[in-house]
Every structure is written in C-alpha cells, then in structure tokens.
C-alpha cells in the first residue's frame, strides 16, 4: 500500500480468488484430483479460460480429513458447500440425531409466571435425572417422530485440535449407527449440495464412520462445475431424489406410514420446481405492474375449480393462496416450507366416498421460486388418509366455494375456507387480508429478521441510525425508510431472508450465511465490490460504500484512481453479545425485528403491541 494523499489511499483493486478456500493447496493434490472422478469425467472445454477446472479446484476447493465419529455436516446448519468423498466412508443420518439447538421441545415459551416457575423446576429435575450428557427428549409439542424415545447422542466440540482447527464428533459412533437409521456414502459420492444450492439448512447429519478424506467444494465452485452437462444432470437427479425422500420422511402428515406404504408414496411422488431460482430479476420487472397483473403473471401451481389430482407439499419457497374475488384475486395467506395444499378437498372425498369429489377451493401460485412435491390423490386416499387420526384431519368443507362440477357457488362468504390447508390453520391468523396482501406483494414474506418500526411510537430521533453508525465505523447499514403499511414501516435493512437471493451470484463467497445463526453477513476481506449482491437484492437493502482504512482515508484503485467499493448491509451486529444495536438504542420501543415469513410471529407481535 502507498499513501497517495491525506484523504485517499491507493491500493490494488481486489479480485476474485484473492483468497482461495485453501491457500495451502498443493499442485500435486490438484493434479491428483483432476485424475479422480467426477473431475476426470468432465469436459474441460466447457469451462471458460478465466475459470478453468484446475482454477476451480485450486481456489474453490479444499481437502479435509476426518476421524471416525467426526461430524461433517449437521442437520439444521446452513450449508454453503458440497462435499465429495475422496477416501474412506461416511454415513448420512436421515433420522434426526438431536433436537434443534436452542429449542428444547419440552420447554416451550411460558405464558405466565406460574408456568415459568414450573418450567424452572422441570429443567432442574431433567438435569438431575439424566445429567447434561444423557438428556432424553421429552414430550414434543409437535408431531411425534419414530425416534422420539431413543437415547440421543451428544455432539462434543473440540475447540482446538493439534492442527489448530475445531472439530465436532460423536463419542460412540458405532452405537449411534446401530441406533439410528443411516445410509452409507462411498468414494465418489457427493452430499451437502442441496443446502448449498438452495442456500438453506442441511436436512440430515453426515458423520465419518472410518478415517475419511473429503473435498469441500464451495458453492461458487459448484456453480462453475455445473457447466459440465453430465455433472449437472448427476447433481440434479441426486438433488431430486434426496430432497424428495428427506422431505417426505420429515412430513408430519406421513409419520404413521409403515415402511412399505412410505416406499410406495416415495415411488409415486413427483418433485416439481416452479419459477426461476434467480427470481429477483423478474420480480423487479413485475413490481412495476398493477397488483392484479402481477398476480396473473405468477405461475399457477393449482387452480381453483380444477379437479384435485395431487396433494401438494411445499418443499422450498413461497406460494400465494388466493381465490377469485370480483375482477381480481384475494390473497388469504402465503404458504412456505412444510405447508400442504389440497388436503381439505381430499379429506372431504375420503370422508364421503359416495359423493362426487370437490375441486380445489383455492388457487396456489408460485411467488418467485417454489419447489413442490406432488403426491397423487389415489396414493393419499389409499395410503395416507386412512392412517391419520380423524381429529387431525382438516375440518369438513360444509360450504364449498366450488361445487363438484367445478362451478362457483354464488352465496359463499369470501373467507369461508380459511384454514382448510393442513398446518396452515394455526398460522393462518386473524391478520387483516390487506396486511397479508401487502407482505406478499412486497415479498416481505421472505424476511426472517425484518426490521419493523412502529410509527405510533417512532419520533424520528435517529438514535437507531446513530447506534448503527457507531457500531460500524461511522457508516449506518440501514435506511430508516421503506414500504409502509398503516403505522408499520418496514425499513430498508437486511431481512436475513429465508431465500437469500443476494448470495446466488457472489463470485467469492464473501456474502455468506452463518451456519449456526443464519445471519447473512459480508466478509470485507473477500468482497471485491462487484455489486452482484446489491443488484440482486430485491429490497435494495444492500448498498455499495467506499472502502476506508482505519484512518478514515478512502481507498482508490492504484491503476485507474477510481474508488474501491464494497457491499454493505446489516449484519444484525452478530459480533455483539447485546444483539442489534439499533434495537437496543431505540428509546421508544418502536423498532423490532420480526420473522415476517411466519404470520404467527406477526400476530404475536400485534397481540403484545401496546401503544
């Protein structure tokens, strides 16, 4: 670095691959890997000269060694890499090995002080009876799983090994393999790609059961490798197979199915992807249209009034549940991962086999990108519904909007079908339709940590902005402005989305999701200022700012003298124990973070709101 003037400093413009995943990767290892499948089977000509196959291995891959019992990926962690087995063997546990961290199922949020005191007693008695390493899972508030009564292993984290790295391992791997359903993965097989491609959580845990060598391929490299047709097809086929199986196995609706019925359901189910994974570009265009025109442009997954051929399970993404109202469409709710569509109609048919089946009573439309599983109606009627308790079936349709001929029944109240979809009932709250429509139209349904400002309390004192600036070297990372719904302002601050499309195009992996907390942050060391993330963010929540050194001098390109930019966005102050400083600094209790992907959270907030 060389100082140019008192307020500027000239530096080399950062470029892609300045920071390889493994800076110590040896040329010998690269050559060896090029001779191994799947790399040896790839066509090197499909890769551009500036991103050759060798470059990808050199910069976007690293070799990792594991001992028996070592956890390679953990269920619930956010994934950004795929893993290729180079040597040894590993096992993928399709059954959940442990409860989701931080949410012991038997300790739900108490509603009053007496309940809280009871819980404290319960915690103590649990700790006394089982000890910290042998806690059994208690009664679950949600559906029971087959493995609920098993002794669950406790992952041990070894913070520092002899090599200076951290590892997580299971102490008695053989006992775990005996006790839980798992599948072996051998040399040449890939795993973890599903979470990396969809920027979501791993749905299974993978543990080494013998000394193993893995090749970690980060998402940026995986995307380039997908240029090879055979490799792409292999990944897609594997993605479909794995995601289908995993999702069906963890669907509460199917939990009572025996192995034979489950196998039949798996064999008969189709997985379909609707919309574009990079939906933000299309959204920017359609956003300019009239609301009704926007809805008409959304791909229809199932149309109201049409015969029910499938039960639809949403695997990823969001879908709009609506029905025709006058000349437009009224949105009733938005469905996300785990929600089911069409069950009410099928349950109606199951309950009254003699009468003619009812068609879909509402429409389901894809919002951006949606992955759905379609279980044929016949399979649902013959293998699934007979095994569900009648109390768990949706309420009977007594007042259908569409009759058995698919014709509109004229005197049906507009919202008579609220809660007809399994699992939606509890979350389909009493939120105003207009608020649901607003959240869907603005795509705020994607937010996990949406910043919401209550304008009935906000005085505009800017303490939140000042606190943000103080925490981040003088540059605030949000704008106290944005779409408004009544007294609620949804500020331009990163929402740490369920589907973070900003991460798709990042060439260096600088914008990444913390695998534990889910917080999306930008690594200033590896961001090269390419603007891809800021242009991809559909909410304009990422801005480009000029890089400054610790003395406050602005960085400029040594060659062109142009400013060096970097992406900047809210990181939820994840390095502070106190949490987001904006929220802590608000003197009027006006600023909140809320999970807008879940209507239940919003309703809960409204119930607690005191003006």
């Amino acid at each position, binding site marked *: 670095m060389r100082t140019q003037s008192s307020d500027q400093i000239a530096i080399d413009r950062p470029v892609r691959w300045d920071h390889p995943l493994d800076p110590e990767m040896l040329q010998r290892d690269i050559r060896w890997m090029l001779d191994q499948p799947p790399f040896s089977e790839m066509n090197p000509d499909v890769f551009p000269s500036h991103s050759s196959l060798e470059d990808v291995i050199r910069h976007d891959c690293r070799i990792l060694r594991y001992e028996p019992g070592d956890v390679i990926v953990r269920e619930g962690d956010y994934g950004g890499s795929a893993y290729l087995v180079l040597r040894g063997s590993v096992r993928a546990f399709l059954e959940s090995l442990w*409860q989701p961290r931080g949410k012991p199922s038997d300790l739900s949020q108490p509603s009053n002080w007496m309940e809280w005191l009871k819980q404290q007693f319960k915690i103590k008695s649990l700790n006394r009876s089982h000890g910290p390493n042998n806690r059994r899972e208690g009664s679950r508030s949600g559906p029971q799983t087959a493995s609920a009564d098993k002794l669950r292993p406790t*992952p041990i*984290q070894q913070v520092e090994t002899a090599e200076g790295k951290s590892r997580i391992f299971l102490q008695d791997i053989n006992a775990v393999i005996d006790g839980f359903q798992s599948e072996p993965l051998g040399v040449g097989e890939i795993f973890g790609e599903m979470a990396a491609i969809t920027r979501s959580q791993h749905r299974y845990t993978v543990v080494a059961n013998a000394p193993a060598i893995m090749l970690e391929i980060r998402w940026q490299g995986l995307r380039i490798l997908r240029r090879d047709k055979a490799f792409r097809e292999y990944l897609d086929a594997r993605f479909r197979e794995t995601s289908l199986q995993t999702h069906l196995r963890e669907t509460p609706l199917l939990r009572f199915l025996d192995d034979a019925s489950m196998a039949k359901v798996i064999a008969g189910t189709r997985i379909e992807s609707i919309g574009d994974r990079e939906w933000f570009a299309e959204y920017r265009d359609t956003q300019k249209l009239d609301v009704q025109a926007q809805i008409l442009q959304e791909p229809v997954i199932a149309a109201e009034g049409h015969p029910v051929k499938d039960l639809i399970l949403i695997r990823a993404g969001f879908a709009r549940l609506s029905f025709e109202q006058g000349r437009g469409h009224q949105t009733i709710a938005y469905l996300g991962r785990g929600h089911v569509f069409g069950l009410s109609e099928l349950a109606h048919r199951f309950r009254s086999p003699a009468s003619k089946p009812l068609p879909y009573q509402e429409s389901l439309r894809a919002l951006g990108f949606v992955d759905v599983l379609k279980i044929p109606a016949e399979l649902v009627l013959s293998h699934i519904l007979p095994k569900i308790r009648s109390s768990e079936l949706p309420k009977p349709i007594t007042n259908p909007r569409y009759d058995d001929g698919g014709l509109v029944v004229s005197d049906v109240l507009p919202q008579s079908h609220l809660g007809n979809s399994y699992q939606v009932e509890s979350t389909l709250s009493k939120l105003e339709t207009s608020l649901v429509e607003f959240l869907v139209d603005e795509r705020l349904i994607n937010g996990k940590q949406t910043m919401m400002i209550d304008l009935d309390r906000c005085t*505009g004192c800017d303490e939140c902005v000042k606190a943000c600036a103080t925490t981040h070297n003088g540059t605030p990372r949000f704008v106290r402005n944005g779409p408004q719904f009544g007294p609620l302002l949804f500020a331009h601050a990163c929402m740490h989305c369920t589907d973070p499309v900003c991460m798709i195009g990042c060439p260096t992996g600088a914008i990444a999701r913390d695998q534990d907390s889910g917080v999306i942050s930008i690594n200033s060391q590896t961001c090269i200022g390419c603007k891809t993330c800021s242009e991809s963010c559909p909410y304009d929540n990422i801005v480009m700012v000029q890089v400054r050194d610790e003395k406050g001098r602005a960085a400029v390109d040594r060659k062109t003298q142009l400013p060096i930019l970097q992406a900047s966005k809210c990181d939820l102050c994840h390095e502070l124990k106190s949490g987001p400083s904006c929220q802590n600094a608000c003197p009027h209790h006006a600023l909140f973070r809320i999970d807008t992907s879940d209507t239940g959270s919003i309703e809960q907030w409204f119930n607690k709101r005191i003006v």
Partner: protein
Amino acid sequence: MNTKTQTQPRSLLETLPTFSATSVRVGRRLIPTAMVILGWLTLRAFRDRSAENLYNEAFVTGYSLAAICIFLMLLGVRKRVITTQIGRLAVWQRTHHYLGLLSLGAYALHAGVLTTGWLESLLALSFWAIALTGLIGWYVNRTSPKMLAAAGGQILRQDISEKSKLIAKEAYTLALTAAGKNDTAALADHYQASLSTFFSTRRGWVYRIKPSGGKRRKLLDDLESIDRYLSEEGRTQRRAMSVLVSSKDDLDFQSAIQNRIRFWAASHTWALGCFVVLTIAHVIIAHQFTSSW
C-alpha cells in the same frame, strides 16, 4: 483438550415468561409510580429521623438528590455506550422518567419550592429548567409520532429540504405551463401572487414553534376560488397545484415537528450543563460554610 457440549440448556433469562398486554400496561405505570412514592416517603422519613437525631438534614436530602441526578445523567452515558450489554435504551429512558419524578420530590424536601440568595436562585432556576424541558420533551415524544404519521408517514429529516425543492420546482413548472394559455393563466397569476413565496421559503417562527393547518386551509381555499376563471384543463392543473400545496405543507409540518423534538432534547442537555456547574459550586460552598453534617 478443551471440550464443551453443544446442547446447552436455555439460560434463565431466555425462558422468562412474556407479559400479556394488559398486565404490561398495569405493570408499566402502576409499579414504577408506586416505587416513586415509596422512594419519596422513605427519603422523607430518613430526613425526619436525621433531624430528630440532630444531624444536618440538608446534607441527607442534598446528597440523595445528587445521587438521583447522577442516575438521571447515566442515561446520556448509556446512549453513548452501544456495544455492551447494559439493557435496552427504552428501559433506561422509562427509568429516567420515573427517577425524574422522584427528583422533583427530593428537590422539594431539600430546598422547598422557593429559594433565597442569588446562587441558590440560579441553581433552582436551572433545576426547574431541566424539569420543564424534560417534561415538555416527554410530552413532545409522546404526541409527535401520531402527528408525524398523519402528515405523510415517515419522511427522513435530511430528505425534507431536497423534497421541498422538488415540489417547488414542480409547482413552478406547472405555473409556467398554465401561463402559456389564456384560459389557464389565472393559475399562473395566482401562483405569482400567493404561492411562489410559500413554495420557495421556509415557514415563519410562529409556525415552527406551533405548527397548524391554518395557512394550508387558506391557500387551498384561495386556490379553489379561482376555479371560476379556469377552463376544464385549468381546473385539472389547479387540482394538481392543490396537491403540491398539501405536500409542501406536510413537509413543513414534518420539519417543524422533527425539529421540535430535537430542540427540546437539546434544551434539556444545555440546562443540565448549567445545573452541573452550579451544583458543584453549591456543594463546595455548603461544605465551606456548614459546621457539621
């Protein structure tokens, strides 16, 4: 080997129950008010006991008041300390309000309502100034959000000037368009006579201190009254001009309210500065000229 388990039980704080809206409402007002009253009664009993035991009760009440004031000033410290875990600012602010009330009671016990002597009078004046600016600031903070929401929602203070300029430019362009034709020229004339100053200048001090809708109503009424001189096209332009007048007035209103919030907050701080200096002088003098505690 440094090992630790990953599945930690939740901390006690994380499992604390949430209050219902009603219990929060009751808890937020009644409990702190009761604590303020209890605090004042305790202080009074302590003062009386000190007097009975022939201690100097002025020191008891004086130092109690000083302690309360130091706690009150800690809010300012909290505002500047962001990165540590010392509670949400909203909780500090609420505590500040109730301690402020207690300080009024403590002051009355220490000095009474009226004081004599020029230094004491100045000190009393600065104390009442803090109390007054604090109370007004509290009232302004309570009432402003709804007033701001009524005037076009959230508009950033730093954007107001730029938006005003854009509106003024739009109004000028509209007037210029109207000036080109006979059947719309009345609008241009009216703009020149009554509106150009409104669009191009800031509002007067009276409005900034106490914003009201009087001028807006008058301007809109005057604009509507020229409809008889306008063609259909001119009336459409007049309606557009009315919208611009309303928008400009909303921005002026936003500016006045937002500045008012800042003014009272700043006044509170200035009064505090004076009070601290005078208090130090008062303590030194009190110790110099008092023989016993």
